[in-house]
């Protein structure tokens, strides 16, 4: 099992002809991921390292049956790339691109919510890896090992750090999902928690959050009602200065809920164990009776 991606994932890479797209597509293939197509408008008919390139997602899906799109196109064009993949009904869209204007994402999110069946992971995320099955995005495969712990995280490198600590202690993972650090992302902690709860391969979940917004608090409320599997959490940013960029109007929306301590408290209150640092998180998982 595992969630979102596995050995049946056929991946198309939007932006395959770019430097980032090419580099990471090669790494995904080295890991054993089935990369079946690339899309770059105007480059149809070319090949990149043996992978056929198409002018549009529609053609790529029609010719190859790709069922996952991973996006590496530059930020100014990334919202369009997401909408194009959704328009071709690609079931899973993983957007790695960082720096997409937030108004673009507000429109994309509203559109996906009411007019599309596609799931978006990201943007500004490291992607999804189901160890031993598929790696879609930029997570270094070397830190992962197959097993029964599901990871969901707003961070990139911090996730690698915690994966490495788990792997080092002999604790494998079912799937790691990097949901992304932008204000608007397509897939939330809750979406992943629900999937991990249903996934027979996953025995426990590690949730990696950080300051800002109230997604961790919402996740805590969801865990209390819907998650029976043990959850271990880590929150980054206890010592980060508050409200560096936030105007008062922003503070009124999140209130005290944006702080790391409020998030850790909310999670502890529903029985989630919260580690103080990455090593402690791995230690807590090691002690779980799973």
């Amino acid at each position, binding site marked *: 099992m595992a969630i979102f991606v596995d050995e049946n994932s056929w991946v198309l890479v939007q932006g395959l002809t770019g430097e980032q797209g090419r580099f990471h597509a090669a790494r995904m293939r080295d890991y054993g991921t089935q990369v079946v197509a690339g899309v770059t408008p105007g480059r149809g008919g070319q090949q990149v390292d043996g992978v056929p390139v198409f002018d549009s997602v529609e053609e790529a899906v029609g010719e190859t049956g790709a069922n996952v799109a991973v996006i590496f196109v530059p930020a100014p064009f990334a919202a369009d790339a997401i909408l194009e993949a959704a328009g071709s009904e690609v079931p899973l869209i993983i957007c790695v691109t960082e720096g997409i*204007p937030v108004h673009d994402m507000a429109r994309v*999110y509203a559109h996906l919510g009411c007019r599309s069946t596609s799931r978006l992971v990201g943007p500004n995320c490291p992607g999804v890896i189901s160890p031993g099955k598929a790696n879609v995005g930029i997570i270094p495969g070397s830190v992962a090992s197959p097993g029964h712990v599901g990871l969901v995280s707003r961070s990139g490198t*911090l996730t690698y750090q915690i994966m490495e600590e788990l792997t080092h202690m002999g604790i494998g993972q079912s799937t790691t999902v990097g949901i992304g650090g932008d204000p608007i992302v397509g897939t939330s902690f809750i979406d992943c928690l629900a999937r991990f709860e249903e996934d027979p391969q996953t025995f426990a979940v590690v949730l990696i959050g950080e300051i800002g917004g109230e997604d961790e608090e919402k996740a805590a409320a969801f865990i209390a009602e819907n998650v029976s599997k043990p959850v271990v959490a880590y929150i*980054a940013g206890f010592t980060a200065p508050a409200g560096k960029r936030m105007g008062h*109007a922003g503070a009124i*929306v999140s209130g005290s809920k944006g702080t790391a301590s409020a998030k850790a408290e909310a999670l502890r209150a529903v029985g989630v164990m919260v580690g103080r640092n990455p090593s402690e998180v791995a230690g807590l998982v090691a002690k779980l009776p799973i």
Partner: protein
Amino acid sequence: MDLLEHQGKELFRKWGLSTPEGRVAVTPAEAEEAARALGPIVAVKAQVRVGGRGKAGGVRVVSGPEEARRAAEAILALTIKEYPVRRVLVEAGVQIASQLYFSILLDRTSKTHLAIASPQGGMDIETVANESPEAITRVHIDPLMGLQTFHVNKLLRRLGVPESSRRSGAHLIRTLYRLYVEADATLVEVNPLALTTGGEVVPLDSKVSLDDSALFRHPELVHYGSDDGMDSQETRAAAQGLHTFVKLDGDIGIVGNGAGLVMSTLDLVDQVGGKAANFLDVGGGADATILSNALQLILADGGTKSVLVNIFGGITRCDLVAEGVLDALGTVEVKVPIVVRLAGTNAAEGRCILGRARHPMLVSAETMLEAAEKAVEATR
């Protein structure tokens, strides 16, 4: 990017909204001259990118050019929350009947646009939210549908704008929403928003934040960011392509890749008894030049007693990071220990490069925890 009040008002006017007549002054003499042109009563206001200037004495309403000069003299001598006041806005006085609050922002909880209105303007909106939450109205706006007439009606009603001032109020709300969308703002806030004795709805202040990620399609707005008032180290960091730099008040310089990992490093330093001097995220795929710039920026701060470099290579290659560290060591004189922890892509090669250099100030660490402990130890 946060705009100064006078910059935000410039955008208000560009989008078709009237604001009180005003002039920017950088000297008391200029303020005096401005007041002479603007009328008997003027407001003299510090132009800084932080809130709370009123409480800090940065806003004064005065009569006549002579008083305006003295007010400007006092305000230009202020430092508000570490930001020295370099200019004031001198603005014609307005006959205020009541002070309101209005803002539009991106609400990350609902992932949509949110307009906030309150008839209790002129004070800290968070205080209003705590003490009389019923005085605050929130209206969500669908990004695909945009601002609707019923939204405007509800907001005006809750603001308490009388029927006779409806046109003026509706124009203000519609204009600010248009500005918010068209300029890719993440916040447009007016506090206070004045209802004048003449029945006009007039913005007395402005707080506008623009989305940095969208500046590529607004070349005409980029210059607002290159203005004064920013911490010089932070400005330098931005100019050198360093992803995010935030100055803190400790003595351990921190360099890392990825916001989450850097935050986690700051927390760990705190847990083992140290205090970070900064937050520096070099971003994904940093090369030797970026690392060298990052280190030099941190070392230039005389208060730094040790530096902790914590890199987990994904896109970033640790061998290039190591070369960047050596480049910095070769460029500037280093008197404090630099603790380096490398993991992930090409970490072994990176450690090898650093090991060969045998620099007396270089300390290597295997884990994050070990690195944090060594960096803290070095400050003692």
